[in-house]
């Protein structure tokens, strides 16, 4: 079995036209080939390298990680004397990926990385998640290395990045008991000892995924007396230094293989990353955007797994003398799971391309001055990445939940039993629309792109794409949806009432999501009808109904009706 080979969607997305430009920028005219035996020679060679490495990842996922997943879910990590031990099969998964040198995929070759684009990197995350979502957490945290690369001193990069490539694990220590969604409230104290020239951390962090990692990024209050975001800085803590113990690991509903820790920092030596006071304002935002993309990939992998579980069960299970997939009530559910999975995946890779474009240009800007055209290009993609990341994370994680829910429904009573994988998928999916910002917070980040028109502009771009005549009706449906969306935005923003906008924000964001994902599937179907036509039809139909529903939800109520929803104690 190989997850890359059995999912032709990967090669389709890998061959997107924008990849040419991305690879060209990433590989800087292929100069690395003179210094690294594993560097590519030209564009075709790079694509071939992506393809071949993804095949290795697909094999490891199918042959090692997935077969371990059930045992990982059952045993989970353990804690002893303040230290965490992974479940034995989790350790074996890590060992397999390490031996295959698949850590640090996105990092530059000078640190030992593969210098891969976000697209194949996220495809790997997608496959790892399909195999074991809890393991995807541990593996994906290597992405914290990206923050070290972007903001740390060269000496710090040389110290930490090669270690990540060699398989040392990472964590991002942000949340505290009183600072969850509201990270400005972080209190963990960072104090500087002038004589030693050394930072020390003291305090408690909570809900830290993979909290006993080798290398931690820690958000801490470096400016005494401050209470807001401007007093927070980012630090790197090296486990070799000591000073951090794990007080407990949480007993969670799902993603049981990933230890979620409460950490106690007692005079833990740490190094400042970048500039003081920029911790939350700049670095966490960047860290979070990367993490959100990772959760999108996790959601897509879970949706894919849910689809396969549902489909395979429905073709085997017979009732009333035939396989249950032949009943409309069942095949509709399965078609919807498939359509939402394909829609989520196309959204993931579109977002990954935007991130690739702007991040690579930003990286190049540290080496040389960008041309005016490149600067425009960078800004354009940076804005799109900023708009698509919360939208995509919100939509795909909600779909992962819906798909896992429906996969159980297809199984009937059996799906409620621990014997079937769909039960684990359901528990694992439940966190995706909560962590790295709940869907409600993704809406907060996305709504400004509704009001400023980023989404609509991009929808207009998609409308310029020419499609084959058979797909014209779908394109017309999408433009009707866009008209309703435009009207809806006008209706909700005209009263200039913040509460009213917030009240309907999710509906507006979802409409944008349906139209955008519909367009992406339409383009996929145009390039590859065999693979995507069904999902394009099913998804656009689904999206159209949702847009109409949201439209009615706004037009069939009055502003003052909001009052009926305010169930709260009198002040």
């Amino acid at each position, binding site marked *: 079995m190989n997850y890359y080979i059995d999912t032709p969607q990967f090669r389709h997305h890998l061959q997107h036209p924008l990849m040419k430009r991305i690879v060209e920028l990433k590989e800087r005219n292929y100069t690395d080939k003179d210094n690294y*035996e594993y560097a590519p*020679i030209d564009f075709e*060679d790079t694509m071939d390298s992506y393809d*071949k*490495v993804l095949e*290795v990842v697909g094999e490891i996922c199918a042959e090692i990680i997935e077969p371990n997943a059930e045992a990982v879910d059952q045993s989970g990590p353990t804690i002893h004397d303040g230290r965490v031990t992974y479940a034995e099969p989790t350790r074996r998964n890590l060992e*397999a990926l390490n*031996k*295959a*040198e698949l850590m640090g995929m996105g990092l530059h070759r000078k640190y030992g990385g593969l210098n891969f684009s976000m697209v194949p990197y996220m495809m790997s995350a997608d496959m790892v998640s399909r195999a074991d979502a809890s393991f995807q957490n541990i593996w994906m945290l290597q992405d914290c290395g990206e923050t070290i690369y972007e903001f740390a001193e060269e000496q710090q990069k040389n110290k930490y990045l090669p270690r990540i490539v060699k398989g040392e694990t990472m964590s991002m220590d942000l949340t505290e008991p009183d600072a969850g969604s509201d990270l400005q409230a972080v209190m963990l104290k960072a104090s500087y000892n002038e004589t030693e020239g050394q930072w020390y951390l003291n305090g408690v962090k909570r809900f830290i995924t993979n909290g006993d990692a080798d290398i931690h990024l820690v958000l801490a209050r470096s400016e005494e007396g401050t209470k807001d975001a401007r007093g927070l800085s980012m630090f790197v803590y090296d486990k070799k230094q000591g000073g951090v113990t794990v007080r407990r690991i949480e007993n969670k509903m799902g993603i049981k293989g990933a230890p979620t820790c409460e950490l106690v920092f007692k005079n833990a030596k740490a190094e400042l990353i970048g500039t003081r006071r920029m911790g939350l304002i700049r670095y966490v935002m960047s860290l979070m955007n990367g993490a959100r993309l990772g959760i999108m990939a996790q959601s897509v992998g879970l949706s894919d797994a849910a689809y396969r579980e549902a489909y395979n069960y429905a073709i085997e299970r017979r009732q009333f003398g035939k396989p249950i997939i032949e009943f409309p009530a069942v095949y509709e559910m399965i078609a919807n799971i498939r359509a939402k999975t394909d829609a989520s995946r196309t959204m993931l890779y579109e977002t990954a391309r935007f991130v690739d474009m702007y991040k690579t240009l930003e990286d190049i800007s540290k080496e040389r001055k960008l041309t005016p055209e490149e600067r425009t290009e960078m800004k354009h993609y940076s804005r799109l990445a900023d708009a698509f990341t919360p939208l995509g994370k919100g939509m795909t994680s909600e779909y992962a939940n819906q798909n896992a829910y429906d996969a159980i429904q297809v199984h009937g009573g059996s799906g409620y039993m621990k014997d079937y994988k769909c039960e684990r998928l359901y528990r694992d999916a439940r966190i995706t629309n909560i962590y790295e910002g709940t869907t409600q917070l993704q809406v907060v980040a996305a709504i400004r792109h509704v009001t400023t028109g980023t989404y609509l502009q991009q929808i207009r771009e998609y409308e310029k794409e020419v499609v084959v005549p058979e797909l014209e009706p779908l394109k017309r449906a999408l433009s009707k949806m866009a008209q309703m969306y435009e009207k809806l935005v006008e209706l909700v923003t005209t009263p200039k009432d913040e509460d009213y906008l917030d009240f309907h924000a999710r509906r507006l964001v979802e409409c944008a999501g349906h139209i955008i994902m519909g367009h992406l599937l339409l383009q996929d179907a145009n390039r590859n009808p065999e693979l995507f036509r069904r999902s394009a039809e099913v998804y656009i139909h689904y999206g159209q109904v949702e847009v109409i529903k949201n439209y009615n939800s706004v037009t069939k109520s009055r502003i003052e009706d909001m009052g009926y929803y305010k169930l709260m104690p009198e002040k």
Partner: protein
Amino acid sequence: MAFNIIVLAKQVPDTRNIGKDAMKADGTVNRGALPAIFNPEDLNALEQALGIKDRYPGSTITMLTMGPGRAADILREGLFRGADDGVLLTDRAFAGADTLATSYALSTAVRKIGKYDLIICGRQAIDGDTAQVGPQVAEKLNIPQVTYAEEIEEINNGKARVKRRLENGVETVESPLPLLVTVNGSARTCRPRNAKLLLKFKHAKTVTERQAENIDYIDIYSTRPYLNLTEWGVADVDADIELCGLSGSPTKVKKIENVVFQTKESKHLSGSDDEIEQLMIELIANHTIG
């Protein structure tokens, strides 16, 4: 301590997932319809070699395979996992070899490679299932052999300690080097391909492959010598042509029979006492029961 290891590996048709076109009408394997894969137990053998290389840095692994041109895939698969180089033994004169001619050809190539401490190969290949080639190579080279190995545990003072998997248990034996070991399928599974080695060696080609038309990146073969895979024919290994291929193969296939498992026709009984009694009599008569 470092050791020179030769891994013998074979490209075989994947007989584990057989479709309806797997056999030809004459009862022989339809190689075209089955994907060509790395013989599974040879992968176990390679993993044993890689394990030794991990534990004794500086050790080298040479892949040796005999087969048609496309068997060069086996060498690349070895390189992707950590082997150092590879030799493809290929020649029309080697074609149609039975186990005797195969082991003769392989032993000449091993002599040509020269220095070795260990030869490791799979117990048997899934196409022939003879388990004869490994032992015969050892005989021809006049070196000791350990078969059915599950793990090469340690190498010390010119001796290897090997755990063998036998029918009713395990046996640990010790043998002086140079030694040939055949590895059982119960041994550790081979590690996946390594991403960096895969990218480093993906263009590795034999001289025949390099002569193919429309080959990409022709100039890298001079700047990156490690991409040139060794290819030897009968003359390169000083083999006696009479002992190779068909002429060197005393095994003759007399007849091949296509065995098709068929379920017998079923019989429906209504459950009446008469029918059950009839059935009892029938089963006793044909000795199914009683």
